[in-house]
């Protein structure tokens, strides 16, 4: 093609809602610029669908600059597409070639029911966060620099964990649909810093209990989550979470947090 634009075949999962069964529908995406983002490509396809009077493809998106965690899309077997460490909105069409067939699926996990087409309901993550992913006391005004000494390695590690945007790619990538990378990132981010210490053990127990309640699978340490995470959250977070959890449950009686169902 003279202008370098691409023609693609899309196999898109279409599903009316969580109650009805979905199926793949094939669309042609023509005249796609390699400089478009993946979401812009879908915008172009949707525009033509709207012109034809058809129902546009429903997908989640918000900031389109890789920080909000809204865009999802399981593209050709990879959450957020074939490139590492980026979200779908940061994926450009130059990562594909002219004439390629692209299969687009929603995140598939029982705790993430499909809302419509490619958008899933990720409020299970919100409920896990609400179960303990916070610091209860007000931290007050801005303290003097270095009033609370935090070693740089600890600050760095906590910050790396805090970069999790909660997009759910870890669940999507995991063969067990386990949410442990997400939960462990949240547990680590707070548990490593002084402000999060008082609730460290209570937090891990509450969040794990909520994670199980939501019906996520369990971790088999395949490392697929780490490989697919757009923010490169490390698998070692899961070990840290396990360590805190077993400490609380087995060795620190004073930290034991008894959960009763329906609490």
């Amino acid at each position, binding site marked *: 093609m003279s202008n370098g634009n691409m023609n693609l075949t899309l*196999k898109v999962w279409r599903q009316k809602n969580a109650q009805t069964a*979905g199926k*793949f529908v094939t669309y042609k995406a023509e005249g796609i610029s390699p400089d478009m983002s993946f979401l812009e490509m879908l915008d172009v396809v949707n525009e033509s669908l709207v012109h034809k009077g058809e129902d546009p493809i429903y997908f989640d998106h918000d900031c389109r600059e890789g920080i909000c965690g809204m865009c999802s899309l*399981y593209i*050709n*077997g*990879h959450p957020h597409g*074939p490139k590492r460490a980026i979200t779908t909105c940061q994926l450009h069409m130059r990562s594909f070639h002219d004439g390629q067939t692209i*299969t687009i*699926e929603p995140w*598939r*996990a*029982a*705790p993430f029911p499909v809302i419509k087409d490619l958008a899933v309901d990720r409020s299970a993550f919100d409920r896990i966060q609400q179960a303990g992913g916070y610091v209860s006391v007000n931290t007050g005004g801005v303290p003097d620099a270095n009033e609370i000494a935090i070693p740089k390695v600890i600050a760095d590690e906590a910050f790396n964990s805090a970069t999790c945007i909660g997009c759910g790619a870890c669940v999507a*990538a995991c*063969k*067990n*649909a*386990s949410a*442990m990378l997400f939960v462990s990132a949240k547990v680590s981010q707070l548990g490593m810093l002084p402000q999060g210490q008082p609730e460290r053990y209570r937090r891990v127990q509450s969040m*794990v*209990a909520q*994670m*199980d309640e939501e*019906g*996520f*699978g*369990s*971790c*088999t*340490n*395949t*490392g*697929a989550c780490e*490989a*697919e995470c757009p923010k490169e959250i490390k*698998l*070692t977070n*899961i*070990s*840290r*979470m*396990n*360590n*805190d*959890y*077993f400490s609380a*449950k*087995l060795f620190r009686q004073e930290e*034991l947090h*008894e*959960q*009763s*169902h329906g609490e």
Partner: protein
Amino acid sequence: MSEFKQTFNSSLGKKLIMALTGLFLCTFLIVHLGGNLLLFKHDDGYAFNVYANFLTHFPPIEVIAYILYLCIIVHAIYALVLTIANRKARPVGYAVTASDNASWQSKNMGLLGSILLLFIVIHMSDFWYRYKYTDSVHFKEYRTDLSSGERQSIEFAPASADFENSVQTVNNFEIVRVKDLHDRVQTSFKQWWYVLFYVIAMVAVSFHLKHGFQSAFRTLGWVHRKYTPIVEFIGTWLFAVIIPLGFAAMPVVYYFTRS
């Protein structure tokens, strides 16, 4: 729900049980391989048969053996329970899945474990069960001349049905009468399909432990810049290479060299 039940019914609690039973089974493999290397001695099975007799008649070993059987069963049952829960967490599968984001063995631990369970059932029914609960393993008598060290072996048919073993010294001859498990091993390892099955099972051990050993440490939360490389080294070289090779060598060597 009691605190105990809550802990071990949680996803992390079940993984803890998988890790602990798995690691116990790993340590057993070291002992099992060490003992069975006696098969490579050219002594008409004397050392091996005496060793087998010791294992089955020394009470502390008996106790550990039953803990071991329990670990195998618990490891398998929890694997099944976790697998069912994991499948339920993804009722609709993907049309396309990538294969380059995790190792093959880490994604196929269930398949590998199933091969191993089948192997353990066949292996134990052929040796452990026959040895302990049937008369199909015959007795052998080893006569060692204590002055020259020369040893002769002959078939021995005990007079009473509940005879188990005996060691006596008569006229400067040590007479050891034990069940001849070595003969059973020799007969089994002369069948090509049996040898092939053993080799396949040991390949499964290799892949299962390549992932499993280090994964158990991760589950326990024992990850450290200092010792995780050591854990991975041991998991790879000892558990995925040396141990499976050592075990696989037994049927192969017996098939090709022993009469």
